[in-house]
């Protein structure tokens, strides 16, 4: 009787442990999907693109992009996370292998208007 009770208890413990592991794995998957490099690339490309378009001419805007460097480090990449094609009005954010994410802005920017301070990891946009 005691042996049977022990078996039952072990079964129950295994059952609950497996359920907890299952839920943890699901939560981990959801968390990974939400904090993935692809999401950051799209989010930053759009944020910066909208910032470029919304600032008035003659304004300087400073933006903290240090999070992008965290992804760069995580993915062991050494290139700059932000590249701008001034002739095509396209900003590209790339923090993982692949092509990154392009966003097109409609403001006329002169070459060199967007710079990154490598020390502070701040993006400076001069419109």
């Amino acid at each position: 009787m005691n042996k049977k009770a022990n078996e039952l208890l072990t079964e129950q413990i295994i059952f609950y442990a497996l359920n907890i592991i299952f839920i943890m794995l699901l939560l981990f998957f959801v968390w990974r999907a939400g904090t993935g490099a692809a999401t950051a690339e799209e989010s930053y490309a759009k944020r910066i693109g909208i910032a470029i378009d919304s600032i008035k001419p003659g304004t300087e805007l400073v933006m903290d992009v240090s999070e992008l460097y965290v992804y760069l480090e995580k993915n062991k990449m050494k290139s700059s996370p932000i590249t701008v094609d001034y002739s095509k009005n396209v900003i590209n954010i790339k923090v993982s292998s692949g092509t990154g994410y392009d966003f097109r802005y409609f403001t006329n920017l002169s070459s060199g208007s967007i710079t990154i301070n490598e020390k502070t990891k701040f993006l400076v946009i001069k419109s």
Partner: protein
Amino acid sequence: MTLDYSLLKFLNYSRRQADSKLLSIWWFAVLVIILVGIVGGTLMFYSSKIDMRSLEGEILSSRVIDCIAEGGYVSDDYLKNNFDVFKTCGLSEGIINRSGDYYLNISVYDSNLNLIVDNDYGNRAFVQECNIGAVMIEAKNYPKCTQKEIFALNLKGETLKIKVFVGSNSEYSSDE
């Protein structure tokens, strides 16, 4: 009597075993359903694009209004059609006029609501597409449009009405 009792006991035991197996199969099925639901939902949510078209339209119309009616006065050059909206407002002509992803219409009316100036740039098809998109519940690939109206003065002090209509569909262009 003893035989009957042991038979009953055996049947009861095997039914419990079968119940337990059946439960585990159902439980496994429930887990699979939850797994598919959560993974599918998460992938769908994160793979969908962040729609910025309405915001872009708002920004573009505000910029044009700020540029044409700076300080509440409409530029005389604009009323005489001697005004390059792209150069003066710092907008890219290539993107707005030629990419096919934007439409910009600027109309100026006098105090009697007579149209004085009407300029439009970009993809004119957006005027119709915006009307269609506005009445449809799901119009994912149709442009998003915004319209802003303000009152300003000309240099003589007369009231003018400026209407700026912007359509944007840059989110779903082929190059993204």
